């Protein structure tokens, strides 16, 4: 029996070690660092600066607003996508087409938009074709939101699609047998039943959208418009790790809030 115990311990050790070193320690360190200023003195001033100076609060509000817009746009585009695909004959094949772009490196997709949105890029050419004067599109907030939504859409479609394929056909048939219109079936049956999918989609999309610093750098220009950009700026450019950690702690807290709002008790699907 003792032998068996040590054998089991063998499995625990590396994993627990990993949990302690790479999950718990880093989070603890980031919280710890948020109480130190640039001269390694213990202080609350990072938090004071964060909550008293308008710039950080505005930036947080902006960041949340952008993430919200990105999430809403992706839901609006993804929900009908998931709905239609879940009813196609070869839906597995179609959903594969949704997944494929997620396997393409994110940076390459962002880079593509630098070309597409540039002054003489394809989008402006199309605009001119329809008689709209060419616009400066790169390095605007709107282009940042659209490109971010573009990148997030597959991650929104997949959980919604999964929850749609979970709905048994008999519910849909029952609802139409009882005289519901297609619209009623959609709003009364399908949407409520796919709520868990929408929620996990929001979780997957909203949190990263708060921190997409490479996109805001490449597409949004050099302005610091998201919490993620601010963290990157403080850690890698101004080397003020204390302030960076403070913003990081704010990010972690917003993440926890989003998780609490969107957590549905999902039971393992295995029977």
């Amino acid at each position, binding site marked *: 029996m003792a032998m068996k115990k040590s054998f089991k311990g063998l499995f625990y050790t590396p994993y627990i070690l990993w949990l302690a070193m790479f999950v718990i320690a880093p989070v603890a360190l980031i919280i710890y660092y948020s109480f130190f200023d640039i001269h390694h003195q213990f202080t609350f001033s990072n938090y004071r600066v964060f909550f008293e100076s308008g710039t950080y609060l505005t930036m947080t509000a902006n960041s949340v607003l952008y993430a919200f817009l990105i999430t809403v746009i992706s839901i609006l585009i993804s929900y009908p996508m998931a709905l239609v695909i879940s*009813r196609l004959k070869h839906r597995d094949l*179609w959903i594969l087409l949704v*997944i494929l*772009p997620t396997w393409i490196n994110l940076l390459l997709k962002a880079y593509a938009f630098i070309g597409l949105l540039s002054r003489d890029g394809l989008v402006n050419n199309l605009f001119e074709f329809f008689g709209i004067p060419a616009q400066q599109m790169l390095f605007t907030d709107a282009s940042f939101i659209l490109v971010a939504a*573009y990148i997030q859409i*597959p991650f929104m479609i997949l959980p919604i699609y999964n929850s749609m394929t979970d709905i048994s056909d008999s519910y849909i048939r029952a609802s139409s047998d009882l005289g519901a219109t297609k619209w009623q079936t959609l709003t009364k049956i399908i949407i409520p039943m796919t709520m868990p999918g929408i929620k996990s989609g929001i979780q997957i999309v909203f949190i990263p959208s708060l*921190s997409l610093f490479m996109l805001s750098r490449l597409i949004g220009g050099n302005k610091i418009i998201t919490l993620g950009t601010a963290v990157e700026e403080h850690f890698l450019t101004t080397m003020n790790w204390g302030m960076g950690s403070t913003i990081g702690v704010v990010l972690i807290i917003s993440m926890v809030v989003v998780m609490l709002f969107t957590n549905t008790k999902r039971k393992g699907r295995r029977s």
Partner: protein
Amino acid sequence: MDNRASKLGKFYIIFVFLLMYMPIFYLIIYSFSKGTTMANFDGFTLSHYGELFADKRMLAIFLDTILIALLSSLFSTIIGTMGAIAVHNTKRRHQRETLLSLNSILLVSPDVIIGASFLIFFTALKLPLGFWSVLLSHIAFEIPIVLLMVLPRLDEMSPSLINAAMDLGATSTQILSKITLPFIQPGIIAGFFMAITYSLDDFAVTFFVTGNGFTTLSVEIYSRARQGISLEINALAGIMFIFSLVLVGIYYLIENHNLSSGRKLDRVEVPDR
């Protein structure tokens, strides 16, 4: 009610698919352009691919990226599988839930937080930034996904299999190597594969912990893209697109194999960035 998608619906998804794929094909088409920008297509050439293959620095970065991906996936698969067995063996439900929520922290945290906290961690340990810090970070953020791919397989395994083996006098090692591992092997392979794609796809974490000397493809693309357009990156995109297609192909072959070996798969795995 007919269960088919309407004409309008089909039109809609075709439209969205076109939008989804347009940037990717736009990149690849211009990789064959004679010009220097992504504005006017000036005739067909393979010169950008020539440039890319002649670029020794790019080749070294490519090999480093692959090396990091393979090594980190190997280690994370080993540790993740052990973790899955550990979680599976927990007796108390409450303990299992705690382990699983700790496991998912790295999966849901924003990349910048993982990157920044690992940077602090490595600096506190006085570990120099470079190959090793990148490798350790990749192993660290790949472990939870491997665990999530292996654990369902373990939970599916009937306890009577183990009991029977024990009754027949098998040792713990024999049970592990003859019963458990073969049974969960499909999950392990899928986990290894997901780990590779996580590694290849990562930008933010690597960007934080890479220091000056060492670069991966994502970081290199980022720093080049910040300087503007160079059609060599387009050529790289072309190659990486083919590469992704091959990876997807292999992955689905494995999944289909799993499917035919009795596992019912009706969930789509969501690769993360």
